[in-house]
């Protein structure tokens, strides 16, 4: 188990290095630089700034400096935001994205398992048909559409009740989080529902369920102890990758709802060619996703004893 974890972490570091390298070179291939903007900078000032931030050095040397700094946990500074350190920006903005993401995952996971179990229990009856219809919508409609529709609905609801029941955009307390998190988790929830449904239907006719019933185990206990735990395994498997889709979905949803998360700052940084922030955020997200996948794998082994971690 310990050796397995170490091995996976080493693999993870290699993955992150690859992401960093690819991003670095791709970024330098994109035309423009941090100084191409609305406000023209005189060539002398530009040369000064480039010298200050080391952008006049050959790319390979820049790459090396970037790598060594990153190895020490330093992502450099932002060119666009008054020389703030990228670490500082990540530290300020990531918790916002993380809360939103965790909430979305919780919505998606709980909703998926719950609705999936419901559809399986009421197979081919109206709750099943209704939920599956919603699932199709949830899977096919992109999150920015849900975000816009969600905002529109919020405006209408707030107008009907006459006060701000839930704010339409912005960030602050839990009331700001609910709708964006729901919107963010909706696609994943739909996907998990469908997965859970087929998994439940497969398990319900399994031999060991019959065995449990032949022991006189009450139906509720057969459901919780024997059926649910086995049915939830495939859902756990896809939770890792779904963290990725929720994170990338966060870029869009954060922008629409005006949430000051890392996704919003990333989109802004790309528009401004803010090299430091782009690199820092990408590597940070990459490392985060790799870590999530490893955690899910460990979790899987804990739930399913057949998975041996060696």
């Amino acid at each position, binding site marked *: 188990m310990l050796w397995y974890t170490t091995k996976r972490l080493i693999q993870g570091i290699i993955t992150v290095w690859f992401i960093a390298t690819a991003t670095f070179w791709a970024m330098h291939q994109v035309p423009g630089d941090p100084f191409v903007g609305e406000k023209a900078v005189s060539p002398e000032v530009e040369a000064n700034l480039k010298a200050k931030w080391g952008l006049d050095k050959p790319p390979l040397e820049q790459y090396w400096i970037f790598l060594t700094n990153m190895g020490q946990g330093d992502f450099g500074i932002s060119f666009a935001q008054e020389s703030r350190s990228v670490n500082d920006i990540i530290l300020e903005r990531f918790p916002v994205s993380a809360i939103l993401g965790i909430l979305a995952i919780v919505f998606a996971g709980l909703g998926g398992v719950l609705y999936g179990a419901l559809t399986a229990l009421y197979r081919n009856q109206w709750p099943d048909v209704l939920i599956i219809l919603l699932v199709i919508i949830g899977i096919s409609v992109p999150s920015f559409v849900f975000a816009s529709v969600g905002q529109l609905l919020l405006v209408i609801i707030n107008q009907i009740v006459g006060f701000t029941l839930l704010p339409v955009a912005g960030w602050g307390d839990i009331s700001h989080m609910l709708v964006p998190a729901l919107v963010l988790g909706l696609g994943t929830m739909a996907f998990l529902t469908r997965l859970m449904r087929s998994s439940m239907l497969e398990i319900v006719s399994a031999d060991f369920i019959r*065995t449990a019933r032949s022991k006189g185990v*009450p139906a509720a206990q057969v459901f919780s102890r024997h059926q649910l735990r086995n049915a939830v395994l495939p859902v756990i498997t896809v939770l890792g990758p779904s963290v990725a889709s929720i994170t990338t979905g966060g870029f869009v949803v954060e922008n629409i709802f005006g949430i000051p998360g890392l996704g919003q700052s990333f989109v802004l940084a790309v528009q401004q060619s803010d090299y430091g922030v782009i690199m820092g955020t990408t590597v940070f997200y990459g490392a985060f996703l790799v870590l999530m996948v490893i955690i899910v794998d460990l979790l899987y082994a804990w739930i399913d*004893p*057949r998975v041996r971690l060696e």
Partner: protein
Amino acid sequence: MALLEVKNLHVEFTTYGGIVHAVRGVDFSVDEGETLAIVGESGCGKSVTVQSIMGLIPMPPGRITQGTAHLRGHDIIQSKIIDGKDIRGNFVGMIFQDPMSSLNPTMTIGAQIAEPLEVHRGQSHRDAMRRATELLDMVQIPEAAKRARQYPFEFSGGMLQRSMIAMAIACEPLVLIADEPSTALDVTIQAQILDLVKSIQKETGMAIILITHDLGVVARLADTVSVMYAGEVMEAGSVDDVFYRSAHPYTLGLKEAMPTNQTGRSRQLKPIDGSPPDLFSPPTGCSYAARCPHTMEVCLENNPNAFPMQDGHQAKCWLHHEECDVVAEELHQA
């Protein structure tokens, strides 16, 4: 009254293709310390018979349309509860054909054996686990304490079936139903499992209903036999009567299709020609008539009742009608 008595059981399944009449008027009974074997080819309704009594077939599509089943005089078709307790796992234990898939892959063996004790006896998890270890020891699994904490994938097929037996007898049931307990195991393990079941029966005096299509297993273990075909009991009686004084052409056919130790042309295997009737629309006459070497006119038109002979031996065949001139001796010569 017998310990478990089933009378005129009918089970149907509604499918897209129509209604399958899987079990059509089955009777059997079993007493304490006795072993009843239900034999017959695949699809003849042996498993459905016992699983429907135990409420283990999905309903719908399955449904018991007629018949009674009494355990110590209690009607167990109407209600699986006796004295406030579920009979399953408590008064009746069951083991199944494929031990690999019949155990929950994400629960330890010990916890699965402990489960009926917790459910029926209200034992604490710790006490039940201790008892589970004893039971594993009883079914001759070495290092039971360690094994109880392991998962099914860490066990071999034979050990899993032993664990299934431990689970089924945890609450000291009156009846053990063994649904093809040795079919999925290799031959040497089969013998061990059957011996184990028999020795437990000697200790506890429980009744056993053994479902199998292996006549060798029947000879080894059973006291009485019911031969099933197309959802009906064709012949029933003591092992000796059914094996040595077979009264139904189907039983004779089965015996001729069974390999023996003898060699030579006379001992060539004789398959039974044809295939079992379509249970979507069972024949009005005898269901074996289409394959029987002795078919008479009456066989095609009327389904015979069971004709009783001596010592509870009975056969569902017109050859035993008093007006029929083919006698038992001739039947065996044929």
